[in-house]
């Protein structure tokens, strides 16, 4: 223990900058190496320079040419899905580097703390799904620990101010990737995701509603207990993550007909969540940023530890 790992962050937008602040202030094992952007005038690069972090505005090429590059053990990519496809191919040629992908590109396996982080500690490239996925997949996973989940649906409402240009230009990637995450990591047979950007001023705190339809024989008390346990676990790394209401249950003895999918008698659980951010880069309403970067940081720490073990052995 005690050996620390230098990291690089590609992308100087909301997510990259928030992640940088978390690495600087709260990581027990990671140190900031290089902050990588493509716009020398971006607020993120300016902040990095002010904080004494090495920067480049030449993108990934700038990072590879940087004197600190040989020391970098983990690269976080907070750009866009299309950019990550290019970055991932280049980074794959550097076998000592581990990659945490915070875009919806999904080159590597989806990871969500609580559900499956440890399973992919040896991976070279992992994907953090989406902010909505990080907020809601733990709940679906919690239900699927006690009952078969036929269908899971989430509604993520975020403040318009916390959705950067990348998110806005590719809103489909959010819905598609989140829905797949509900299935692959959450354990639902079918997933669906909806996102709403709300422009209210003052900005609203991120809200997420999770609907699950599970086996009718499931015990609501057991489902509630599992959800509460998982919420407490997520709150360990995102303190502003909380249940707004106790889970609401509805029994469907007569089958719920889901067009194009099937008909299921089942127990529906509705979970109302609020995600208040830590206020590192954007103010506290931007819980969507916080849950993404906090989860990414955890994964980066895990990959760094696994990498050091590998290098030593």
């Amino acid at each position, binding site marked *: 223990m005690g050996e620390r790992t230098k990291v690089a962050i590609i992308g100087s937008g909301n997510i990259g900058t928030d992640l940088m602040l978390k690495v600087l202030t709260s990581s027990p094992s990671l140190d900031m190496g290089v902050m990588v952007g493509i716009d020398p005038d971006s607020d993120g690069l300016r902040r990095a320079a002010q904080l004494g972090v090495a920067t480049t505005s030449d993108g990934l090429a700038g990072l590879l040419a940087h004197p600190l590059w040989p020391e970098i053990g983990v690269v976080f990519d907070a750009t866009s899905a299309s950019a990550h496809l290019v970055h991932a191919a280049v980074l794959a040629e550097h076998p000592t580097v581990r990659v945490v992908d915070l875009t919806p590109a999904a080159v590597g396996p989806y990871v969500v703390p609580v559900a499956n982080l440890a399973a992919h500690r040896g991976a070279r490239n992992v994907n953090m799904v989406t902010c909505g996925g990080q907020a809601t997949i733990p709940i679906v996973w919690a239900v699927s620990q006690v009952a078969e989940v036929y269908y899971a649906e989430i509604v993520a409402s975020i403040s318009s101010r916390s959705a950067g240009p990348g998110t806005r230009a590719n809103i*489909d990637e959010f819905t598609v990737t989140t829905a797949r995450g509900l299935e692959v990591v959450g354990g639902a047979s079918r997933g669906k995701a909806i996102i709403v950007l*709300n422009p209210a001023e003052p900005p609203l705190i991120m809200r997420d509603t999770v609907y699950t339809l599970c086996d009718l024989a499931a015990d609501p008390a057991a489902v509630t207990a599992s959800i509460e346990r998982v919420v407490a676990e997520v709150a360990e790394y995102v303190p502003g993550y909380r249940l707004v209401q106790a889970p609401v249950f509805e029994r469907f003895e007569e089958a719920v007909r889901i067009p194009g999918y099937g008909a299921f008698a089942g127990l529906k659980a509705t979970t109302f969540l609020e995600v208040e951010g830590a206020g590192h880069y954007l103010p506290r309403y931007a819980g969507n940023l916080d849950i993404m970067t906090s989860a990414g940081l955890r994964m980066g720490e895990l990959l760094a530890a696994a990498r050091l073990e590998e290098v030593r052995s």
Partner: protein
Amino acid sequence: MIEAADRKIIVNDVTLRDGMHALRHQYTVDQMVTIARKLDEAKVDLIEVSHGDGLNGNSFNYGFSAHTEPEYLTAVRAVLTHSRLAALLLPGIGTIEDLEMARELGVDTIRIATHCTEADISRQHIEAGRRLGMDVVGFLMMAHMIPTAQLVAQARLMESYGAHCVYVTDSAGALLMHETRERIGAFKEALGCQVGFHNHNNLSLGVANTIVAIEAGADRVDASLAGMGAGAGNCPLEALIAVCDRMGLRTDVALYPLMDAADQLVRPIQRRPVQTDGNALMLGFAGIYSSFLLHTERAAELHGVDPRDILMELGRRKMIGGQEDMIVDVALDLKKNGATA
């Protein structure tokens, strides 16, 4: 795109899309086909068919429809001889995959709807519609919530992405007549593309505001048979055509088939009367998204609170279209705080 010859008003029926809300998305395929035949006979320009919340709207949050979208679209497409087929898509709910499905099934016009401040999330869908050779409409919802100048800036974005027409969409039925005139007039002045108007009858201004929009230069207008739509419904199509005829405004749409369809096909299948009653009036009064109505009435009954309190609180919290999940959240909060009906 669709040309408007000699100032002919392009009429877009929404009975089979907005009307889905009023039926909790439960039209049978037969009902849709029968209604579509009459609309086609009347020579309505466009007939929109989708889940009330747009393609892929099927969900716990908005309600599951009785049939799949391909079933509805295929059946309606097969009976159209004059009218073009339209579909609605809300980015964040539907995706380009849904748009491609709709195109393959013969949808001519795709209408991309966003909240009035969020036009930039429509870019990939508007561009995709254009790429597929479709007539593409931008739909700026809850248009009462921001000042005209801001609305115009958002409309310019949609036009720049390639929209053939941009709508002032009064989702809450909250616009007053001078506000409608101002918005449509400003769109006409600022945009090179067509301008459209969609509203709800929550303040009983359905026909009046639509006429105001036409007078201010709107090229396309939405309406539905017997007003079949969310909240107090939309501008009633048969009444609109009657007024246009009287005023000498050219629609080229036949009145009698519409009257027949409204009376014989649509009113008999309404489960809850689509009218400006107290709860529906509250939508227009408080500026609430019209499709919240039935969800609110259900939550009020289930949790024993006054539906008007729920609607007022949703307005206070600045909830927008798509946030139906917050209705139960509000009802539970009101119940906790002891505000019972």
